[in-house]
């Protein structure tokens, strides 16, 4: 893989990390994240189904060989993105659970005071 291909790969992973953890989670960021993920997931399926004959443009854009190389490339991007999003979701759920427990504890001491 040429150096530009490696840089594009690192850039895509960095973009997914930024979307998940660095930028504030507003509607636009969530939408862009979903678009990215959908695009790469469809590309992954496309890279398998239309491996060498039709699916030429994307491997060329990503500076990677068509066929198994592009499948592996896209698989790493999609799985890493999924993992980042799931980690983010877990953290959000953990935070919400913590908030519920904190509320219960604070309400309890308030009631005890009353």
């Amino acid at each position: 893989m040429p150096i530009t291909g490696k840089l594009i790969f690192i850039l895509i992973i960095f973009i997914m990390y930024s979307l998940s953890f660095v930028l504030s989670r507003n509607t636009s960021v969530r939408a862009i994240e979903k678009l990215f993920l959908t695009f790469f997931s469809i590309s992954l399926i496309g890279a398998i189904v239309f491996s060498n004959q039709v699916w030429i443009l994307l491997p060329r854009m990503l500076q990677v060989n068509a066929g198994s190389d592009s499948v592996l490339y896209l698989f790493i991007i999609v799985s890493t993105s999924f993992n980042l999003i799931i980690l983010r979701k877990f953290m959000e759920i953990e935070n919400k659970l913590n908030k519920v427990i904190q509320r219960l504890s604070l309400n309890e001491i308030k009631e005890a005071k009353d």
Partner: protein
Amino acid sequence: MIDTSDVLVIVPIFNEINNINFVVRDLSKWFENIIFIDDGSTDNSSELIQKLGFKSIKHLLNLGQGAALESGFEYFLKTKDYKYAVTFDGDGQNRAIDAFNMINLAKNDNLDAVIGSRFLTNEYLPEIPYFKRFVLKIASLYEYLFYSIDFTDAHNGLRVLKRDLIRDFLLPINNHDMAHASEISYKICKSNCIYKEFPVRVKYNNKKTQNSLNSINILIKNLFKPFNN
């Protein structure tokens, strides 16, 4: 002696039944308002605190020291009009006299925050284990480079914080584990408040003090949980 009726000491604890008596005795000499945040202890710490006649907030599950402090801060803001909160480790490694002197400094100099530091004087340095000293120095450097936190002690649990600072800048605390210490330091530095560091002594005879290798957990967690998000 300075009046401490407007000060609330917040003591997060987790399975500290062996240290509570000592912490209570030490703090009671200097402070009248103390609240313990029992972060899901399974050793009847809460019952002992109630038996000793002190208030406690009990989390149903262990959420982490950051969450315990957050609950303490929320109680601090909602109840009586306290002006200052003191965060004090429940494992007995802090000294109440240091907390008292920090309150004294905060009131005399009208400071928003006073942060305890083990590295301001050479007097207490030999008491800090070498590896811990090394890790704390690396942590301070990391915090300075990545978050512009200019404290000499990266993770000191002894702090004096003014009401406005807690209300306007510190809450909510996003990191409920030990990474909360970096988050609090970051928010203090970013708030443009007036703060000073104060030399404190930390006792290391308690086996339950934080493992130095936990700094790796904190460092990696910081990558995925920015303080301002």
